[in-house]
């Protein structure tokens, strides 16, 4: 059963000759882990923005099954977490009834120590820790769908490793689906069971991650795989 689906979505921005999205359709099943990959400008983030309701499609529609709660992780923790808030307050925001135990559990789910970090500001922790705080913030409301936009692209190698481990652990231990935008096929292989390849606003390939990466059907997918090896 799909909990999120985009049906023939096209998005045109004023002044742009080409559509940002051109008849894009895909869905995310209950408990399914899906990655969207493609180069910059391929329409990954636009798809995500439309799926989340941050932007409206020019045509087509988005369907979200009830009840679906969504946890959201942005690309850059330095921009998505308020620099003048402490970690605990960041994680609690916008979720009524969240107590210390919930914040502690959410931080522990991404291997962060509540006692060490809860009263710190984002500027006092590393980029990798900050992105895991962002994931904890997304988890504290117990979402059924975790949506992340390039969650490892703004952190260093060690931070990236910790984030991938945290996301894998969350995917394994929590009953949720995930939709993660990535440009790194290696990360997509670790975090998804299904992969959607986008090029110039279109979905060019959609299938099981292992199968698509082993036997790409589209020339662009093969080019991406080749570029990742290089």
């Amino acid at each position, binding site marked *: 059963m799909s909990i999120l689906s985009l049906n023939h979505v096209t998005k045109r921005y004023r002044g742009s000759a080409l559509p940002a999205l051109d008849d894009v359709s895909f869905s995310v099943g209950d408990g399914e882990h899906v990655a969207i990959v493609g180069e910059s400008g391929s329409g990954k983030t636009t798809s995500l923005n439309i799926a989340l309701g*941050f932007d409206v499609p020019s045509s087509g529609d988005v369907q979200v099954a009830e009840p679906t709660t969504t946890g959201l992780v942005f690309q850059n923790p330095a*921009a*998505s977490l308020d*620099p*003048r808030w402490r970690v605990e307050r960041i994680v609690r*925001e*916008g979720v009524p009834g969240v107590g210390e135990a919930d914040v502690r559990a959410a931080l522990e789910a991404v291997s962060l120590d509540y006692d060490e970090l809860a009263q710190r500001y984002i*500027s*006092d922790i590393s980029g990798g820790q900050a992105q895991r705080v962002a994931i904890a913030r997304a988890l504290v409301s117990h979402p059924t769908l975790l949506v992340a936009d390039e969650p490892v692209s703004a952190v260093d190698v060690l931070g990236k490793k910790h984030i991938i481990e945290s996301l894998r652990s969350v995917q394994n231990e929590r009953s949720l689906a995930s939709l993660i935008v990535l440009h790194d096929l290696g990360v997509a292989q670790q975090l998804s069971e299904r992969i959607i390849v986008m090029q110039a606003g279109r979905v060019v390939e959609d299938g099981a991650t292992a199968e698509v990466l082993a036997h790409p059907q589209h020339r662009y997918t093969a080019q991406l795989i080749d570029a990742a090896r290089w």
Partner: protein
Amino acid sequence: MILRSLIRRWDGLLPLIFVVLWALVGLVSLLWTPYALTDTDGYSVWAAPSAAHVLGTDGAGADIATWLMAGSATEFAIVVAVIALTAVLGVGGVALSVAHSARVRSVSVLVIDALISIPTVVIALILAAPAGASVLAVILACSIVYALNLMRVVRPAAAAAARSQYVVYARYKGVSEWRIFVQHILPQVMPSVIITVSHSAATAILAESGLTYLGIGVPAHVASWGQSLATAARFVTLHPATAIWPGLLITVAVIALNILGDAVRECADPLTNPLLRGDRTQEVKN
């Protein structure tokens, strides 16, 4: 914690001491002054400092120290009122100029840009015209102009904060627009607000002097530093010493308020004050 940080640094402590003394002198003047404001001695005009008149007398034979003491209260009231009104009007305007509603945003930006071109003197004239010169007119004229200036200075940073991803996230989680402004946007622009308001307070003292000199500021029977300076300024070539005291007080107050504003900005911001972050900044990062 902010006060503790402030008194640990010279640029916080010294202006703070001046402001506290200023307020105390103003308070004392409400209960006691060496002479009454109306006391004049026709036989002792332009008198040099003496035991009877520690700062001398002016051209009417009035005690300069008495007028400056009483002026401290007026000046302090003006500064406090201008700070409060500028902050309230300015921050309110900033809130409208970065509102989520595009219509509210564009109308408020248009109004701010239109009003900002009007000089303080013109606003003071408009306010003073129906009821005559008054302290209230000075306060309102200064506050309106400085609030518009605050909106102009702070709006770009507030707009950037309003477009930030943590605001997008808060909105996505259903946090109200009011809470978003107070909890996310305002703290980001508070350093600029503090600097602009402290600068406005300092400028208000100068504006009060200027407006009073022009006859549209503090009325003649009300003591203020600007009043004392305006009185002395007419005879500054003959009796320069009488202009020194109000001039010195105004200069020191302006400098103190500007320096204090800068120190408060640093001490009140967790990004620049390690004490507010709980002194844990030096711990090893992951």
